[in-house]
């Protein structure tokens, strides 16, 4: 099996690589079209800011490539947000794989933003969460989130309910960081890689 992690200016993706190492999965870290197209599984990670990341994807034409992929693709954190239609973070038009707009968490007294730490996920609707107990905890760090929509396959709640995971066709995405979410995160990664 060929697994590719898409290379772009998405900050520190080292922990994603280490998570795959722990699972015994070899991978290629690349931004080359041929390598990405020929992969069995594609991981599109991300930490950082939406508009900068999107501009970089455009400069490498990855914004055209990623939506055209046909093998299973998993976006995480900002990767997930870039797969949505639009992000309020610096008014960024994103790739539009998921028909939903990413919004900043509303201001609520006593509730801090970013949403940082471990929170429970529920309302599972897809086999990617097979054997994950309802209300399992995963690790989040984000200030923007996609509301619950037709593509939502796992929900989390902070200030209001939001999409913890999305799915459409061959595209999967997680707002949380699978790679540092303990055994639960590793299981979700494993489920994706076993597809």
């Amino acid at each position, binding site marked *: 099996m060929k697994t590719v992690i898409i290379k772009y200016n998405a900050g520190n993706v080292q922990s994603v690589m*280490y998570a795959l190492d722990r699972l015994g999965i070899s991978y290629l870290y690349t931004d080359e079209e041929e390598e990405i197209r020929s992969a069995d599984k594609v991981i599109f990670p991300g930490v950082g800011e939406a508009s900068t990341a999107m501009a970089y994807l455009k400069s490498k034409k990855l914004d055209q490539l990623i939506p055209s992929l046909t093998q299973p693709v998993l976006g995480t954190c900002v990767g997930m947000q870039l797969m949505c239609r639009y992000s309020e973070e610096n008014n960024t038009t994103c790739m539009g794989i998921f028909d939903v707009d990413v919004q900043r968490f509303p201001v609520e007294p006593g509730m*801090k933003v970013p949403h940082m730490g471990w929170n429970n996920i529920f309302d599972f609707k897809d086999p990617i969460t097979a054997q994950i107990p309802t209300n399992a*905890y995963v690790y989040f760090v984000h200030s923007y989130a996609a509301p619950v929509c037709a593509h939502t396959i796992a929900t989390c709640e902070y200030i209001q309910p939001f999409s913890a995971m999305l799915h459409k066709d061959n595209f999967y995405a997680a707002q949380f960081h699978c790679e540092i979410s303990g055994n639960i995160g590793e299981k979700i990664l494993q489920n994706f890689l076993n597809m």
Partner: protein
Amino acid sequence: MLTKRIIPCLDVKDGRTVKGVNFVNLRDAGDAVELGALYAEQGADELVFLDITATVEGRKTFAELVKRVAHTINIPFTVGGGISSIADVSTLLHAGADKVSINSSAVRTPELIDQLALEFGSQCIVVAIDTRFIPYIEDFPEAGGDHIVHTHGGRTPTELRTLAWAKEVENRGAGELLLTSMDTDGTKNGFALELTATVSGNARIPVIASGGAGTMQHFRDVFTTGKADAGLAASIFHFREIDIPDLKSYLQRQGLPMRMTI
């Protein structure tokens, strides 16, 4: 519900944990990786590795250690100690750290916070604030009667007042605050509740409270009265005065949101 976090802190010198540890089931209690992995398994929500090495050689060893930790541990971890440049941060993040903590260098060059937030994102920039109460002194009215920020492991006072500095680092792009009260640190008499509540109540970013944990009730108090988002401690975990699973069960029984793993 977003849980309160329990964070053991490991002091590392030349790649080894320094405070004596008391875990019979560890092959090598001085091995920071093995100890970190044990804490992760016990349900620690994050880990902090603090490099207290002063030498260049020791720094290289620390980066190697960070790499081994990242390979082994599947929860987030922060590294700190002597970080003073974008290059330092880059080395540690590329070694696999999830966040870095800066302290003295932020006081010396506050613009460093802006630069790091821009370069790496706020989410991975923790600013550590060591603070000590200095009573009002007539000869020195501008600094006294307040919690004053200290640097160099709490030895050197600055002119910064804690609350104002906390607001400044937040505005400059810090993603999290690690607040240590030098007055309570090492006492085991409890966290500095009033100070923590003031800083956390005025912050839009999460606050990790540190210094003074001696009992499980102290953690409850810092999460309720102290409004902290996370509680950090070192020796009480290392000496097994408090076991993390017991602590988390206790806090859950007290009605606090906790991530229960075992």
